[in-house]
């Protein structure tokens, strides 16, 4: 939200109400159930024992969880480091109008609309050394590539799959932001003799700020919840190399059917994401405000 002063109007709540009801129905009720599970030991549907914070303590001491969390952090940071610059570059190099623009848009957006399990399958096929294009090509080039056997290869393949899958999101948002810049800005920059970098830094980047903030947050949150694609591609292996948080949670909830610990873990998981996003959100707001004051003074 912009930081400029807006008129105070409490009646605006009426405009929020439908959204509030919709999301409350699908979020607050289920969340309460999870909270309920997290403090009970459910032995059978009619036999439940209140255990307080026992599950939370157990989950916090869980060594596997710490490792999964660490892997998750490294993965999410790598995703942002690759996808945001690549997406911005892509947005800048996409043609602005004409049939070329339409075709490029459709091609770029294509990977976003493939169901996630199919994305996993595509890369599974693509990376296999016997029937896959990438796998067999790498093998012919002399790399001993195997995403099922080598932990580093598996990790890199999951990262490459995520870059392939999600960079278009960043690119499309950036592109929409770029198209909102009136031609007059560019003309003014040309009259001032601004360099290409200056145009990017002082016109394009500030105009893309809002959409880029969405892109960074979305990519961060979604990479933090990644489940289906690595599940299909590597199943979390080899070893635990690609077992991220959601994977670990599902193993606990479905594999071992420990509802109590799984619910406690869910809540901790949720709080971690919440905290990280809150920090990221405030940080980006601060950067944006600094940009604005700088622009108005300069």
């Amino acid at each position, binding site marked *: 939200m912009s930081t400029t002063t807006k008129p105070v109007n409490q009646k605006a709540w009426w405009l929020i109400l439908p959204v509030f009801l919709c999301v409350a129905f*699908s*979020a607050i009720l289920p969340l309460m159930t999870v909270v309920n599970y997290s403090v009970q030991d459910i032995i059978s549907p009619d036999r439940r024992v209140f255990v307080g914070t026992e599950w939370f303590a157990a989950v916090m001491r869980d060594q596997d969880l710490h490792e999964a969390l660490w892997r998750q952090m490294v993965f999410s940071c790598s995703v942002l480091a690759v996808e945001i610059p690549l997406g911005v570059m892509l947005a800048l190099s996409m043609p602005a109008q004409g049939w070329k623009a*339409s075709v*490029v848009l459709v091609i*770029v957006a294509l990977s976003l609309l493939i169901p996630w399990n199919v994305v996993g399958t595509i890369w599974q096929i693509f990376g296999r050394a016997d029937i896959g294009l990438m796998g067999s090509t790498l093998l012919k080039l002399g790399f001993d590539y195997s995403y099922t056997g080598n932990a580093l290869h598996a990790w890199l393949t999951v990262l490459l799959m995520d870059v392939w899958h999600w960079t278009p999101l960043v690119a499309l948002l950036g592109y929409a932001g770029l198209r909102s810049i009136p031609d007059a800005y560019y003309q003014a920059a040309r009259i001032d003799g601004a360099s290409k970098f200056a145009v990017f830094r002082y016109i394009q980047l500030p105009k893309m700020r809002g959409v880029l903030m969405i892109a960074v947050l979305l990519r961060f949150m979604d990479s933090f919840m990644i489940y289906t694609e690595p599940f299909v591609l590597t199943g979390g292996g080899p070893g635990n190399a690609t077992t991220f948080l959601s994977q670990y949670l599902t193993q606990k909830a479905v594999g071992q059917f420990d509802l109590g610990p799984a619910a406690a873990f869910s809540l901790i*998981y*949720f709080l971690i994401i919440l905290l990280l996003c809150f920090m990221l959100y405030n940080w980006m707001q601060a950067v944006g405000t600094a940009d604005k004051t700088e622009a108005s003074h300069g």
Partner: protein
Amino acid sequence: MANKQPFQKRTIFLFCYIVFALLPIYWMVNMSFKTNAEILSSFSFFPQHFTWENYKTIFTDASWYSGYLNSLTYVAINCVISITVALPAAYAFSRYSFLGDKHVFFWLLTNRMTPPAVFLLPFFQLYSTLGLMDTHIAVALAHLLFNVPLAVWILEGFMSGIPREIDETAYIDGYSFPRFFLTIFLPLIKAGVGVAVFFCFMFSWVELLLARTLTSVNAKPIVATMTRTVSASGMDWATLAAAGVLTIVPGAIVIWFVRHYIAKGFAMGRV
């Protein structure tokens, strides 16, 4: 010459990216025209024994094609509800400050951040209690969890880019709020609405976990139908590839419609 250089670089970069984006998809398309025996026995860029069999299987088998219809139904319901409730809310967030506005906005975002795995079991119990299991509306409602916040967020971003003077001028000219909103404001944020619809469609279309859990037969989505081939004895790569190709088609059509809104941007005809 110096002017032409960066343009060239950009084109080359774009070309490389497009190749990178299309190769895995091409490989799937390639596979969908092969037989299973050919996929596993030989390696080729083009199908040696070109066959439509895989597509025929999908279009003649009701358990396959009804999956597409089910998915499209709940995605459409979800998009309509999401955008309808998100529009006024986004306007309120972008134009007014009110008690707890920042908190509600952030609370909405937190729902977008919740891993669906967390809500799996509660959703199952909630919809069973309400008797909504295995209906399109159940999946559509469940997907509101992440699509409404997203729509509000995207629309708010676009609306904040419209100067507030436009609203004030319209009110001075005697426009009522609904009339202003529908006839002046909405056309201005067409690009935003397009992008929001696109993302709602996208996230609802590709979601697997909730859609699979809340349905069994009548509303079973295509993504759940596809997991069937994974569990079958030996992978049915060819049919899976064909089904995968077909899941891209509705998406491609939606982008084609939305591209104008994105491309036109909000160059903003003045009021």
